[in-house]
């Protein structure tokens, strides 16, 4: 049993198809009368269900055409229509020979029952009597048909117009809503590439949503990525990107996934808004909430975070953190006497003085009132000691406030993590307590929380004063340690070393004072002293007609950063009439780590002036072949720790061999340091390092004794 459906409305057509099909009928369907008619002329069917108003050929037209065709006129014809049906319609339909005139919508069981009845009665020969036999005049029929259809069309037109204006209004409403909530619109494809951008920041269409997810602020990047991968709807993701003008723009985007009917994801469609100003405002609010508005310094809450962060880091890196607690002495007096404005000015100026002395990594915060704290990361108590002294000195100059000189000193307390405590809160209390003690000591002073550190700090201070004093009192002198060519036992050079003879303490080992001198410009003075003393001695030997091998002088890391280093070296050599090539400047690898511009310049100029360069402590930690090449190093000294290990450590032997091979390849002179016995000397020689220095050959000796060596060597020649 085959049923033909002529119906232009897709939804109605599908419904009928499905229902009839599920009832066991064969179904063919068309969206206009003409297509249906063409089909019927070729293929027979058992029943026709037709709408009235359709394109090309309306239902009445279809019915009339069938009824005039002898082979088709017998097929039962049912009108199923809703469009502006009047009683005239039904009369006309029946007059045309239709079996039934049904009005939409019908419950499907009722509809099916009618279909079945029509089929049954047709089979029983009980169809309409007038099928194909319309008896009226064709003219009258045409007119009636045309009037009915025109009437329907007019109504349809009105309805369409109404719908259209509703649609326009609805679209306008939605546009208003969208525009009020968004600045612009976008669409992306299935790869998340933004391919449609209506309004919006220039250049955004070069991005994908995935790119934007990487720069998501409101949510984690991961969360946004996951949402995109899952093709889920998202709203209010705040992302940033750099627009075509290079401006950083913050955007808030929301999007809805788009799918085809079969469920295939085809992209997103969404809205966006530029929220840069809001983000900037939020940042400002955040800054204001975490900073003191007078001095611009971090406030108490941010300080607490900084401290906790510093301590967590120190715990990982096994380093120390210093907490400095400052209080301005007499701040209250200034406030009371000169007014709050002056007090505020003092706070600002004090902040500046403290900051100027601090390292870039030291974090100064204002707790409130005249209390400041500073977190020093990766600093030793000695660094702290130096800084507080610098700050106290900086406060000895009066402040210029309201054309008045104001003498405002500061008292400082210092606590040390982890030595004093590992708890941030307690560290703070300790620094405060230490500050209080400093104040009690008479202000303008500092105190470590741990009394032992105070003791050591004073020792440092004493040591520095002692070094200054030693210069004045001529307590420094130099000694010389021979460097020997192993196989021939011949003197090939010497290293100049500093000694300090204290009138009460006797000889003070360099280890005790060099480290402290290195903390200040004192070490430069020491370097200059050694250079001068060495040159003076060389001159004396030369004047005696002795031949003097190359003399090595140690220059510290700090001195290597001095602008005047090379000038002084050259001037000293010139002063004693010594050729620069007689002098070798010994530098530790460590000194080259800080490759500032001055270090680079000095290294170049040392070579240019004719001095040679020796790299001390080679192999200790930071060895870089780069240094050897870049700075045209002439000599490398194998560190004593490797020489020590030669007997017992296969590893050390390998390292020494490697250094020797390297030296040979680069044409470097090698000197083994700290040789203490024959075995070490032999192994070094066997490894290819013939030049050695150490107690096995000679300890550092005074000039007079060195003279004997020089004479002996001279004789050998």
């Amino acid at each position, binding site marked *: 049993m085959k049923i033909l459906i002529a119906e232009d409305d897709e939804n109605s057509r599908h419904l009928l198809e499905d229902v009839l099909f599920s009832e066991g009928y064969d179904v063919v369907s068309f969206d206009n009368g003409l297509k249906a008619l063409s089909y019927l002329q070729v293929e027979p069917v058992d029943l026709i269900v037709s709408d009235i108003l359709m394109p090309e050929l309306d239902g009445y037209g279809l019915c009339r055409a069938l009824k005039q065709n002898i082979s088709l006129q017998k097929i039962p014809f049912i009108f199923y229509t809703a469009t502006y049906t009047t009683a005239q319609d039904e009369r006309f339909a029946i007059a045309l020979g239709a079996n039934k005139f049904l009005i939409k919508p019908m419950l499907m069981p009722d509809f099916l029952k009618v279909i079945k009845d029509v089929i049954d009665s047709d089979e029983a020969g009980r169809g309409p009597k007038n099928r194909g036999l319309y008896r009226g005049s064709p003219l009258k029929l045409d007119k009636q048909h045309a009037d009915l259809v025109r009437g329907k069309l007019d109504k349809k037109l009105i309805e369409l117009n109404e719908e259209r204006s509703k649609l326009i209004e609805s679209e306008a409403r939605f546009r208003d809503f969208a525009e009020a909530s968004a600045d612009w619109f976008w669409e992306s494809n299935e790869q998340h590439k933004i391919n449609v951008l209506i309004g919006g920041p220039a250049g955004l269409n070069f991005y994908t949503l995935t790119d934007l997810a990487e720069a998501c602020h409101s949510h984690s990047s991961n969360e946004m990525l996951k949402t995109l991968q899952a093709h889920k709807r998202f709203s209010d993701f705040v992302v940033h990107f750099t627009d075509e003008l290079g401006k950083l723009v913050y955007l808030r985007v929301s999007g809805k996934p788009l799918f085809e009917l079969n469920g295939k994801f085809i992209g997103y469609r969404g809205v966006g808004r530029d929220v840069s100003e809001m983000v900037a405002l939020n940042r400002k609010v955040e800054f204001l909430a975490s900073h003191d508005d007078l001095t611009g310094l971090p406030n108490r809450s941010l300080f607490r975070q900084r401290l906790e962060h510093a301590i967590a880091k120190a715990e990982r890196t096994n380093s120390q953190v210093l907490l400095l607690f400052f209080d301005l002495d*007499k701040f209250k*007096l*200034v406030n009371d*006497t000169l007014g709050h404005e002056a007090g505020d000015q003092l706070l600002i100026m004090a902040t500046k003085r403290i900051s100027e002395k601090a390292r870039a990594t030291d974090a100064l915060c204002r707790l409130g009132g005249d209390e400041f704290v500073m977190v020093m990361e990766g600093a030793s108590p000695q660094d702290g000691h130096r800084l507080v002294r610098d700050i106290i000195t900086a406060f000895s100059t009066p402040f210029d406030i309201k054309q*008045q*000189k*104001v*003498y*405002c000193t500061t008292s400082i307390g210092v606590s040390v993590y982890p030595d004093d405590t590992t708890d941030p809160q307690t560290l703070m209390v300790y620094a405060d307590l230490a500050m209080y003690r400093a104040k009690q000591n008479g202000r303008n002073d500092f105190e470590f929380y741990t009394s032992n550190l105070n003791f050591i700090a004073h020792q440092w201070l004493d040591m520095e004063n002692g070094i200054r004093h030693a210069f004045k009192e001529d307590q420094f002198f130099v000694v010389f340690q021979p460097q020997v060519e192993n196989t021939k036992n011949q003197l090939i050079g010497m290293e100049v070393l500093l000694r300090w003879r204290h009138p009460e303490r006797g000889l003070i080992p360099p280890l005790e004072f060099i480290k402290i001198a290195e903390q200040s410009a004192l070490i430069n003075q020491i370097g200059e002293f050694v250079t001068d003393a060495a040159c003076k001695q060389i001159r004396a030997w030369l004047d005696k007609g002795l031949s003097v091998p190359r003399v090595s002088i140690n220059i510290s890391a700090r001195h290597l950063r001095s602008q005047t280093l090379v000038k002084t070296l050259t001037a000293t050599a010139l002063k004693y009439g010594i050729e620069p090539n007689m002098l070798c400047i010994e530098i530790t690898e460590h000194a080259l780590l800080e490759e500032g511009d001055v270090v680079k310049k000095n290294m170049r100029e040392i070579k240019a002036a004719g001095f040679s360069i020796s790299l001390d402590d080679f192999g200790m930690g930071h060895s870089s072949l780069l240094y050897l090449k870049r700075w045209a190093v002439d000599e490398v000294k194998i560190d004593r720790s490797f020489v020590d290990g030669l007997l017992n450590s296969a590893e050390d032997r390998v390292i020494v061999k490697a250094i020797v091979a390297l030296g040979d390849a680069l044409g470097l002179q090698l000197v083994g340091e700290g040789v203490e016995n024959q075995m070490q000397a032999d192994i070094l020689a066997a490894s290819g390092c013939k030049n050695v220095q150490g107690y096995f050959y000679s300890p550092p000796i005074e000039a007079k004794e060195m003279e004997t060596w020089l004479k002996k060597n001279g004789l050998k020649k």
Partner: protein
Amino acid sequence: MKTALIIEDNDNNLELIRFILEKAGYNTRFAMTGLEGVQQALTIPPDFIILDIQLPDINGLEVLKRIRAHPVGAVVPIIAMTSYAMAGDREKLLGEGCTAYIEKPIDPASVVAQIEKALGKER
């Protein structure tokens, strides 16, 4: 404009000397105890100090000593005011570095001239 620090515990005397000095074109600051006076003198040093010798906490001589002991206070002119100007007191004051002294009760008509004379001597 020069600033004077007046260290004086008596309201009426203080008001009088302030009035006279301000009329003569000076800025004035004041302290009503000796300790406060020392602190002010050393923290915000004035151009000169008018110092009463009778004070409630530490006496004027002690104030003078403490100010002079500090490098900041060593060079500030200090003019003492004393009501019982005995010869011994004067010598003690001058011996501790007092620039000059004027006698109480002060004479409103001539006190500025006396002070300026003392300051001139300083220069």
